């Protein structure tokens, strides 16, 4: 068992299959489904990754989908060092200092 009732989880759904999408789309988007992710507290007594489950979202809405993650983590961060940015501050200071001001 991966998750139990009350666990904070993330679920996934296909909203529209590739063939059901709006006709007014670029070709690459036509070819893929419209997918959806929502988080909430697990309502099933227990579940495994991949199971169809029901959740209660933070505001109390109930919805169903495939369980994909437990305690989903934020993975965004401040990124890698971007060497192309490093000179900018020194360059700007040098320009402002140019005429001895």
């Amino acid at each position, binding site marked *: 068992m991966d998750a139990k009732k009350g666990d904070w989880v993330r679920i996934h759904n296909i*909203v529209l299959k590739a063939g059901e999408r709006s006709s007014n789309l670029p070709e690459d988007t036509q070819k893929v489904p419209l*997918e*959806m992710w929502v988080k909430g507290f697990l309502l099933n007594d227990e579940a495994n990754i991949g199971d169809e489950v029901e959740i209660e979202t933070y505001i109390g809405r109930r919805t169903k989908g495939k369980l994909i993650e437990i305690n989903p983590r934020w993975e*965004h961060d*401040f990124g890698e060092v971007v060497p*192309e940015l490093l000179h900018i501050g020194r360059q700007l*200071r040098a*320009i402002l200092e140019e005429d001895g001001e």
Partner: protein
Amino acid sequence: MDMSYEAVMARKGEIMKRAIGIDYDEFESGSIAFDYERMMRETGYTLQEIQKIQSETNVGNTPLLELKNLTKLARKYAPKGKGARIFIKDEAANPSGSFKARRAATACYHAEKLGYKGVIAATSGNYGSAVASQAAMRGLRCIVVQECYDSRGVGQPEIIEKARKCEAFGAEVVQLTVGPELFYTFLVLLEETGYFNASLYSPFGIAGVETLGYEIAMQFREREGRDPDAVVVTNAGGGNLTGTARGLLKAGAQSKVIGASVDLSGLHMASDIQFNKKSFTTGHTGFGVPFATWPDRSDVPRSAARPLRYLDRYVTVNQGSVFYMTEALAQLEGIERGPAGNTSLAAAFYLAQEMDEDQIIVVQETEYTGAGKHIQPQLTFARKNGIEILIGDPSEEVPGKNIILPKDPGYIKAKDLDVDKLRKSYIRNCINNYKVEKVTEEDIKFLAEDTKSNEEFVKEVLDELGVKY
């Protein structure tokens, strides 16, 4: 109930009416024209009411900062006697970290007043966290629907950060892959919950921004004894520009209103593959141009955001210049803001060089910076998605292929978009969308007002299009 795509879209009108409480038909003429000012008057709030509403939830009265070092830097590249003073309105000081709190404040106030239990907003931008923040203060439930991922499940770091912020305020975030059918999910949720549609484009949302323009005029009068000569607005859906311009007019200020967008020409906004090839998720031409030339594409029948009505000039800057200016703002002025909100700052840096030294140019917003929402993660993400990062001449940047950081500040340029061309395109879209055979006198008057042109201009365009009037 039939929940198929077609069936839900067919119920759009009734879902919308219930979710926003406005009968837009009342303002329609039956042809192209509609009574914009009456719509704003009868469904919006007065400036004084909005000031009161916004002060209830600590929105507005943000600091006005003079960017002395950036002004000095701009003067290094300007002809003698040129180089206007550059100011910035620090909208990041609003509760949710952007000017969008102003729009959200009125929307949430209105929702509460009408007795809705919750609010829903369809946005991948700062507006989501603004609605979540205002909803938290007013005890409303909040759902934010985001377009966030491509079909590989890879999300824009900037959008993911905004999702985090929404959750921090207790909102539910529904994340989707690329595609305009986000609107379908949005309608399904409105129907299911009976919540209020906190549209970015409602009269109260736009009226919420009027205080921003008004404050700018008042702060300058108090501080400098005069109005600013130019106000630069980062333009996407047009609401920021419309509201700010209306606020300036309400203050009686004659400042030029200049729109600025990041140039993302060539990238298709609904393309799954191109979605993560762009390094700006807002403030770009991919929204700016289509919304200017067809504002009624929004999530309400008649958008209150009508940028062509107020625009004096519209410029674009490239992605690399905005990233460079974001770094410059931190390095020379000691504040971290943006990046997306700094689009108008990059434009102002160039535009200041065309203006006299004793003139004033003001960048009317900043936005908070955070993990994912920062030049470093955004450029890291760009590189991971195959975008080349170069230092050179930004005018050679190809959106979706490379990002060119200016070799030095002298390479930062703003490029004018032909506003007459946008006006023509808007008029053409009106003809096509309303399928009118003959344009009425009222339509001509409306089109002249809605494009800030005149009746002769409108008639010329109609002649070109071969439309009778």
